[in-house]
């Protein structure tokens, strides 16, 4: 029942025709993952901005993750700038992971370790 509610919420939130670019069916919208990492790249591009970060697992292996955001056009309304993230920044990210298990996801928010600034993806 809980799963159904979450799925329905995702459908209602992302419904046609409010969708601009693609559906979010590839993400596990019921699951939120929080991880710490180091930014390796920040792409201030359309139709989506992207951040890449290295996350070191418990086994010591470093994995590069790609997290999708909305567009710069929407991010600027939430206080983002193209300079908000830069390689080397230590961050804590929360995201919906891909269902296929690949190292990608849809960003929910990022917290910068130095400034404690929180930027939301909405």
């Amino acid at each position, binding site marked *: 029942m809980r799963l*159904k509610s979450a799925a329905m919420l995702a*459908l209602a939130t992302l419904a*046609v*025709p409010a969708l*601009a*670019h693609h559906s979010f069916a590839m993400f596990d919208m019921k699951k939120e993952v929080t991880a710490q990492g180091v930014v390796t790249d920040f792409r201030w*591009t359309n*139709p989506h901005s992207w951040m890449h970060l290295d996350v070191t697992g418990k086994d010591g292996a470093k994995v590069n993750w790609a997290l999708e955001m909305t567009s710069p*056009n929407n991010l600027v309304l939430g206080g983002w700038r193209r300079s908000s993230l830069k390689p080397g920044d230590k961050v804590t990210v929360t995201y919906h992971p891909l269902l296929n298990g690949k190292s990608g996801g849809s960003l929910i928010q990022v917290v910068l370790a130095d400034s404690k600034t929180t930027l939301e993806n909405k």
Partner: protein
Amino acid sequence: MRKTNIKRPYRPALRGALAMLLCSPAWGQQEAEADTVWPAAGKTVDYGALQGLPDWRGIWLPMMGKNPKPEIPRLMGKYKAHYDEIQTLINSGDPEAQLKVERRASACEPPGMPGIMTQPYDIEFLFTPGRVTMVQEAYMQVRRIYTDGRPLPADPDPTYNGVSIAHWEGQTLVVTTTGLRDGGVMGRWGITYSDKVTMTERIHLDPANPDILVVENRFNDPLALSAPWHSTYLFSRNRSQDQLEFICAQNDRNPIDDKGNVDLVDTGQK
């Protein structure tokens, strides 16, 4: 190419204007103003008439979640079957329903009318003599709405945004649109139209709040609807920001396969 432009429904009228141009000793003194179908070819232009139009300046942000809930459409035939299929999927809680509604060849493919009005980005309006132009920030889409008195074409080629003509009723812009593609999305969750649909929009400021724009839609479709269907969109004004560039192909990492599944590529790469 200019040649492509000439292949419009008004070709005979344009041909006449061109003939006049070719026979005229001076291009700047041609007498094409008699051609009411191509007012841009007229000798004079009345910018002063724009002073009587309402103040729609600024960018308009969709008030998602605030729009009145539309009535249940009275669909027919394959359009009802499609709607029923989607409703069944939604009621089952199947997260794949969204994929089955949103079938596009590319994630950068625009939605067409009326989806161009309701993407989660702002729109703006430009008034020029004989025309209202709407620009949607997402994908930088343009709607050309002709207020120059031209008729609707009798047999338009179906397109994403169709052909729109309009007139002003006081401070309300009344837009009629035809020439839309069969299967285009009329409303949420499987409400689609045929290529015979006629859409009417009444666009005006909210009398109680001039920073809210109201778009009242009515759809008539002899193939898809047994009764007109209505919806309303609301927008809030932002006077202090401009539209931004949006090039969808800049970094599109979301290919769609032939089954409608959306992927996310270039993960885990530095």
